[in-house]
């Protein structure tokens, strides 16, 4: 997967490039709008991470230019100003998602993966990891063949984990995806909910699949075998 980052802020650009490269993407970094649009139009990328405040051309102009040039790649824009009209403008111009600075890197990674996956995943009715299985149709969850009964929200939470397995999910993302709490809410509630899910899914089984990532969130993954 090849990504293009257009970001003029030195450190932000470098860290984004490093982070996304280490997450397994091929990443190009351009530091101004004019070059950004040129590169985006001449080469093939799977996704564009676009800062709004740019020297030369601003993010909106770049976005417009790319869409007019016929490129349909997903665009995630970064903005420092969380104004409603700013967001609306971006989405109207054809951006696919946005993040307000400051943001957690894990959040960015999660959004990037969502955008890349969009429309590509073959919808399967069973999600699984190792011996953990979740059936979307019968709404049954089993681990090692044993039936696990979950509440509706626990089911949604596990479904989110399984769909995004291997990704660190920030608490804010979990709150908004599972409970529709699209704002900063009491994170203790998330911690408790995940703990309860763990008790049902992990406590009596090995290996443990849900892991806490300090300062970032939670991830569901098969532990690396050392």
């Amino acid at each position, binding site marked *: 997967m090849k990504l293009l980052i257009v970001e003029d802020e030195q450190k932000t650009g470098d860290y984004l490039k490093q982070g996304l490269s280490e997450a397994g993407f091929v990443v190009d970094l351009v530091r101004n709008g004019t070059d950004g649009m040129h590169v985006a139009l001449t080469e093939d990328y799977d996704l564009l991470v676009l800062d709004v405040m740019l020297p030369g051309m601003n993010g909106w102009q770049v976005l417009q230019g790319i869409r007019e040039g016929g490129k349909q790649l997903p665009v995630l824009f970064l903005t420092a100003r*969380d104004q409603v009209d700013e967001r609306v403008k971006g989405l109207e111009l054809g951006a696919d998602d946005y993040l307000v600075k*400051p943001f957690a890197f894990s959040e960015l990674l999660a959004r990037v993966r969502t955008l890349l996956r969009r429309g590509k995943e073959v919808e399967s009715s069973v999600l699984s990891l190792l011996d953990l299985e979740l059936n979307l149709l019968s709404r049954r969850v089993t681990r090692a063949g044993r039936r696990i009964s979950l509440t509706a929200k626990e089911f949604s939470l596990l479904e989110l984990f399984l769909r995004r397995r291997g990704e660190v999910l920030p608490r804010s993302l979990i709150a908004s995806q599972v*409970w529709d*709490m699209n*704002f900063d809410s*009491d994170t*203790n509630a998330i911690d408790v909910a995940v703990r309860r899910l763990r008790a049902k899914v992990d406590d009596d089984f090995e290996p443990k699949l849900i892991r806490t990532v300090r*300062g970032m969130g939670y991830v569901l993954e098969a532990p690396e075998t050392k």
Partner: protein
Amino acid sequence: MMRVPSITFRLTLFFAIASTAVLLVIGYVFIVAVESHFLELDRDELNGKLALVRNALAKAHTQGELDAIPQLFDEALVGHRNLSITVFAPDGRILFASSDDAFPGAALKIPLTERRTEQSTLAKWEIGGHEYRDIVADVATGIAGIPPATVAIAINIDHQRIFIAALRDRLSLAIMFGVTTMAALGWVAARRGLSPVYRLAAITQRITATRMDDRLPLDSVPVELREVARAFNAMLDRLEESFRRLSDFSSDLAHEMRTPISNLMTQAGVALSRSRTSDEYREILYSGLEEYERLARMIADMLFLAKTDDGTLLPRHDAVDLAEETKEVFDFYTALADERGIELELVGQGTILGEALMIRRAISNLLSNAIRFTRPGGLVRVRISQAESGEVQLVVENPGPEISATQLPRLFDRFYRADQSRQKDSDGAGLGLAITKSIVEAHQGTIGATSSPTTTRFEITFPAAA
């Protein structure tokens, strides 16, 4: 932009116009009175002379006596240079005409036929630059059998005209002088009358952001300006209060940010002072990340508050089912409440106009707060009620220690924590309730807190959906 004329100018102008009008009316009345007085004098004189002529003619019993009348009149008219008498025979022949030829009796000929009446009437004439007033009447002679003669008596009234013209000139001068004086007095009165306003302005100028405690002294202000001064003082009170809040807020903000940043700096400095194992570095980064997370949340909350404060964040006007939203929020907190042995209960329902996401956030903050301060086994209850008037009330109630009356209103202040030791509680920088309040106010609602020894209540009242 049109310039607004000054009050002094307006008052001066008003005085000038008013006094002009009054003086003109007085002058007019005066002149009319003088003229009618002259008319009376003339009438008396003319009637007197007519009576004289009537008398003389009545005594003439023969043609001879009649012919002697001119002589008689000439003698009687000695010294009456302004008077002229003409007597016409019934056939129009002039029997007698006084020597004053400035008023030729002939001039009377034409109107004579029209004015011949039993009653004497006065008329005004202007001939050859002179003005006259005359009287015309039919007078019977002593000779029997002949029709009455017609007598016209006129007096020259030039002296009246001259007098009135002079009077008019003097009155005009007096009026001009009067108007000027009134205008000047009006200007002085306006300036003096407005002096309290200038004093107010002087006091106002002393008031600055750093010296906001100055107030306008109500006692030394005239009654008319007292309301203005009172309103002004009230505005200063409000400004001072918001200034105080703003400055408290800024210093709180600086303080709130200084602590985590200082921690981060110390931590990084210490970490770099010697080489460490990768586990230690990881630990340091994690701890830093947590600190950053807190800062980022604080900034996001502050921005939210700033936006609701300056009115850029206006809620939409959708129908929001409060019970539905509360259930959603309950869903979110169920696990947490369960774990702490706290029961959540929802009673009643109500619908308001607003933005669901913002309302949910407000309820979430109140619930989070309630759960945090409730001991295990307690019950957090949300009661929603819709009054007849359409007003909707949402009450969040939890058992908890009493909050003192002085602390209650401050609960909604930014960064305020009733319990200072809770500083490092995992959640929030003390902005939750402030955010709730600004959301409620953005919906034109009010929020308040009450506390009894056993229960803490937060009450939101939303206005009836218009």
